């Protein structure tokens, strides 16, 4: 196991800080097919993604150093279990405000400071402005490289590309794969989905996912503002604003902005309908759906709701509903 590897799980993790402190940030996606291994530590009615990540760590495959974000009950529970199971590893719980405004930015900046200090202490070094500049530049290049490589890609190929980029691999290194051609263009929105599970199933059913509004899809690459500043404190302030500028997760307080951005993206992407798919037991999305449904209905945007258990072994049962939906929107 590489001691420099640092696991992270939530898309609001400031990977730039991890990289600036000399760690290799790796987003974990866990074992979607083996999450029962975590049952002793995490209740089965918790998010399957966090259970899958713990199952992977229990098997010894994942680096144990980890940064968690206090973004939801599920992630907080993963942090609890992880700290208890791997007491010798670096573990940090970063707070994430729900409010994206001025006070939220101030909170996030303070949290970034705190994380940076903890990383410096653990690594036994001091992060200079130059280190942080370099990490932010690299992150920006990764983002641009993703946007270029994702052009024209859909479905599994698109989400896998996003995941690989989140693993800090430049898309240029990724095998050229434009994904399956054809299909009915749809916008997929939700939390985090298994590209080889539900996303692949949708592709097989005839959907062409042209935009993946997922935290392991396009969402992490949506903040355009550059991270600037002459010194570390100013850069942290700018970085906090950058993270809060992204298309928000449903857990954030700016739901209105989320719905507006989604509707705009729908129009720009040429999608004919929206598929709302989320992992089971994710409260942020369970409570979000009725609000989103009202808005999309008002805008006349067709909507289909699906649910995922992350492994998606039973996705075939959804085939009739998905085919009927695709048929309906294709005929419009």
């Amino acid at each position, binding site marked *: 196991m590489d001691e420099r590897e640092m696991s992270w799980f939530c898309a609001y993790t400031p990977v730039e800080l991890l990289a600036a402190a000399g760690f290799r940030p790796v987003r974990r996606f866990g074992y979607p097919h083996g999450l029962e291994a975590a049952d002793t530590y995490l*209740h089965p009615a918790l998010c399957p993604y966090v259970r899958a990540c713990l199952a992977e760590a229990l098997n010894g495959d994942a680096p144990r150093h980890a940064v968690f974000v206090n973004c939801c*009950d599920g992630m907080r529970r993963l942090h609890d279990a992880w700290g208890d199971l791997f007491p010798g590893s670096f573990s940090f719980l970063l707070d994430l405000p*729900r409010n994206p405004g001025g006070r939220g930015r101030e909170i996030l900046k*303070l949290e970034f400071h705190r994380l940076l200090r903890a990383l410096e202490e653990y690594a036994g070094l001091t992060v200079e402005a130059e280190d942080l500049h370099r990490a932010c530049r690299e992150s920006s290049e990764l983002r641009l490289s993703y946007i270029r490589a994702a052009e024209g890609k859909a479905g599994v190929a698109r989400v896998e590309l996003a995941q690989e980029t989140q693993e800090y691999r430049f898309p240029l290194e990724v095998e050229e794969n434009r994904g399956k051609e054809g299909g009915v263009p749809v916008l997929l929105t939700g939390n985090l989905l298994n590209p080889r599970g539900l996303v692949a199933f949708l592709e097989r059913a005839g959907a062409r996912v042209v935009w993946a509004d997922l935290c392991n899809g396009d969402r992490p690459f949506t903040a355009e503002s550059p991270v600037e500043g002459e010194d570390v404190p100013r850069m942290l302030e700018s970085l906090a604003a950058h993270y809060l500028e992204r298309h928000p997760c449903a857990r954030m307080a700016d739901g209105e902005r989320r719905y507006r951005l989604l509707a705009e993206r729908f129009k720009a992407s040429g999608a004919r309908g929206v598929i709302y798919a989320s992992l089971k037991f994710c409260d942020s999305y369970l409570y979000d*759906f009725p609000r989103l449904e009202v808005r999309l209905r008002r805008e006349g945007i067709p909507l289909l709701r699906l649910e995922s258990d992350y492994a998606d072994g039973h996705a075939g049962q959804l085939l009739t509903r998905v085919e009927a939906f695709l048929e309906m929107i294709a005929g419009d």
Partner: protein
Amino acid sequence: MTVENEGGLLEAIRDRYLEKLSPEIFRSRLFWKTVEGLARSPLNRPQWKADRVSLTHFIRVTRDAYLGKAPVVWCNLLVPSELIHGLGCLPFYPEMAAAVTASAGLAPRFIDRAVEEGFSNDACSYHRCLLGCAVEGFLPKPDLLLSVNYPCDSAVLSFAFLSELYGVPHLEVDVPLPGREEQLPLLAGQLEEAASLMAGISGRRREGMMQGLAEAIELSNRALEYLHRVEEMRKREDCILDGRDAMGNLSVLAGCMGSEAGVEFYRLLAEELEERGCRGPQSLRLMWMHLKPWYAQSIFHILEKYGARLVCEEYTHATWEPMDPGDPFASLALKLESHFLVGPAERRAAHLARLAEEYRVDGAIHFNHWGCRQSCGGAPLVKKALQEKGVPVLIIDGDCVDQREYQEGQISTRLEAFLESLG
């Protein structure tokens, strides 16, 4: 309302009004006159004098909220009630309303209504129930929704929906993780923002706002002193106040601090405990974690059969220090931040391990409320912390609000086996 204690009263109201149950009834003065009459009648036989105080308080506040006598602020469990009372607003706790609905046996209808609205069966039934009640128009219309980001995500998220349903603002307060002293001024700033918003709604100037808050904090401090006396009494051998009755006092702890009723409730309870002394029979001493099912079930009969009593509960204890009336926002920020449900589960586990030790419990029961990622999620860590202290733990899966999810046979068998093992 201390829901368990008012079971007879709720039944009477239900029997009288069930057939005619409609949102309009709650906005009728006649209905509230009847409720107040019933509360004063022999039908209401509270176990403790203090319960009459809390009942009268909650009936008055709820009545006024329905009749629109003052601005109504909906809060989730950890919003400090001093903030609302101090601004002359009426706090309304929809999660408690869900518990009252469940204790009247009416929750399934509203839960199903929320599901029809698009809410998932995997979401917490407290929130599905309150959302169903709200969608059907049964709850008093809020002027403001105020939530804090603990103890769980559900409240913040369901309030976001309710804000749109009622067309009123929703203020979400971000409470920092433990040990973030540098963020306490930001938390105080958020509370001040909430207070200013309420002052605007209730027409108070800043001076009146600060005076109201100072008074509320003084009342809260007085109630806290009495609460400490209650806690000391409950630590004594065989104190006669059982958790079965005391668990509902969470509503007082959450909703009455900062009001005269809060002071009076804990004063009377402390005095009555001191008067009646500790004459209970020798028994197994148990701690209850999370909440109980509010509808009728057999758990407490089984405990009684085995001579077991609940000597303490997770949510009914003081978790903060006396506050400074001259510095309300910083004080309330500290009160909020110091709550054991804020932050990682190890803080909650430490709180429960401390209670187990102070109350010398023989065993502990954790009720895993379906859909509660906070309590179910933290249960393994809590169990471990207690077992390290030598306290056996039983984890029961169930649902506090939806009686259809209560597995009578399975729960009874597991509970009896646990109690037998404690001997």
